[in-house]
């Protein structure tokens, strides 16, 4: 039986009940009471009074019966939907194998359950395909890289090599490592897109990581005489994957140091706001144009080509940083004044 039919039948029952109350009242007022007055020899009540008695003593209860009945009916009609919602909520990327139970009475909700189950089955198979694709593609790309690296290293062990030959082979080793790094980053992003990266959540003293990375920045920036300032750093705890959070900090720090000028600065500030920890990393970089800012999180985006600076990097660091911030329920944004400074702001929800 469909929900529509069921609801109609139940509602007619409620209405019938209300009618019985009303009808019974009218019968008592207009027939039984009149007979009683007549028998007792009292004068008949005026009709207007009778009607208002019917309205107050019987119509009002009848309305209340319909209201209560209607409310009960709606609850009954909606309860399978809330059960279904709870069941749907339990299903996430991690347990796509789960299916919803059908109630078996062939109504609209059963059809919805079927459609949902079919959809989850489809999702499950595409997740599996994605996972397998990532594993296979990674294997296929890394096998040749492994062979190239191993063979070049083997060749470099030969004493008979001339210096120029050695130089070429060594430079190839560098490039292979760079390529391997890009392959790793790309696969991390591909898996992140597919929701396949697991985060190991724990409580993290965010300020300690910030201070650690500021110390690293000190060294990274030493050759450019950068001044590293840790301004106001308030103690705050966030919940997240320690490695990923560090990776995020390092990516931002690395950019802040690379895109800077000799004698410039990098400044860290960590503030606690209600519900959020707000980290800003400002630097005296050349700045990013407006078009650049719009694309700065795009994969392989490498800044304004016109500037043509020979800065190494894969162009994937900020994409990964963005994914890390988002996957921790946070945000990351970049603001810039061309020619003077750039500020990265990372907001993460405060943890316990």
């Amino acid at each position, binding site marked *: 039986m469909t929900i529509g039919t069921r609801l109609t039948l139940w509602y007619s029952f409620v209405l019938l009940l209300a009618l019985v109350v009303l009808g019974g009242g009218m019968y008592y007022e207009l027939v039984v009471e009149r007979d009683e007055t007549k028998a007792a020899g009292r004068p008949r009540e005026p009709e207007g009074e009778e009607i208002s008695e019917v309205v107050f003593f019987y119509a009002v209860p009848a309305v209340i019966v319909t209201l209560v009945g209607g409310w009960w009916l709606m609850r009954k009609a909606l309860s399978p939907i809330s059960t279904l919602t709870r069941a749907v909520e339990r299903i996430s990327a991690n347990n796509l194998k789960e299916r919803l139970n059908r109630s078996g009475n062939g109504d609209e909700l059963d059809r919805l359950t079927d459609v949902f189950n079919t959809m989850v089955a489809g999702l499950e198979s595409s997740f599996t395909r994605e996972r397998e694709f990532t594993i296979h593609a990674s294997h296929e790309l890394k*096998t040749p890289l492994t062979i190239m690296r191993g063979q070049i290293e*083997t060749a470099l062990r030969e004493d008979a090599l001339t210096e120029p030959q050695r130089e070429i082979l060594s430079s*190839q080793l560098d490039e292979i490592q760079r390529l391997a*790094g890009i392959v790793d980053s790309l696969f991390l992003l591909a898996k992140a897109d597919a929701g396949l990266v697991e985060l190991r959540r724990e409580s993290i003293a965010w300020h300690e990581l910030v201070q650690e990375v500021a110390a690293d920045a000190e*060294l990274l920036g030493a050759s450019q005489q950068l001044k590293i300032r840790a301004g106001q750093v308030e103690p705050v705890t966030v919940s997240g994957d320690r490695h990923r959070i560090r990776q995020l900090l390092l990516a931002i720090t690395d950019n802040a140091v690379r895109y800077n000028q000799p004698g410039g600065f990098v400044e860290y500030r960590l503030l606690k706001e209600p519900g959020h920890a707000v980290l800003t990393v400002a630097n005296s970089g050349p700045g990013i144009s407006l078009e650049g800012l719009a694309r700065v999180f795009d994969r392989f985006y490498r800044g304004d080509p016109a500037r043509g600076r020979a800065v190494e990097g894969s162009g994937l660091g900020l994409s990964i940083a963005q994914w890390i911030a988002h996957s921790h329920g946070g945000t990351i944004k970049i603001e810039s004044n061309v020619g003077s400074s750039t500020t990265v702001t990372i907001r993460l929800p405060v943890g316990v």
Partner: protein
Amino acid sequence: MRVLVVENERKTASFVRKALQEEGFAVEVLDNGDAVLPLVSSTQFDVLVLDIMLPGRDGLSVVRQLRERRIKIPVMLLTARGEVNEKVEGLNAGADDYLAKPFALAELVARVRALGRRGGDTGAILLRLADLSLDTVNHRAERAGNPIDLAPREYRLLEFLMRSAGQVCARMAIVEKVWGYDFDPGTNLVDVYIMRLREKVDAGHERKLLHTVRGVGYVMKEMTP
């Protein structure tokens, strides 16, 4: 020392075999997972180098199988995935070490050697290389009698390099052991620290002890000038 290499990719197996043989190890190569248990049960090997993706039984289940039978051979897993989860899974299955492809050959050799003599050397307290000494209890370093002032991370880096003196330490291995990162930080942090350390340890001395192995990493050893 006898090493069994299980790797189905012919070229990889070939240069791994060559590199290990050059170190003086006796090497045997298998190209599938099913044959490992029978061979390891009948022949004594000191180290097993095992690829995870293999025809037949995969590397992880080979390790589990060995451990279930109480076969204690040190196992080094090789994998193309290099994910943190997989690493944890591999070590939980009973592997002793783990190397992500593409690995540095020099590092594979160094780690296989370390696995082979596991249990042999318990961490020495005083490390020496030429006229450089490192007291691992008081965290004090001296070169030719002059104390060297080291920041904590510089100390950890020097200790790691000196403990593996003579062996090449890959950059990723340094990142893992000294920084505790499981990911490639994508910065030249390691190189910067090495530069610092080199200034403190080698500057002003004729005999240099800290050397760069291009494309691989760093090594501490005595080289005659």
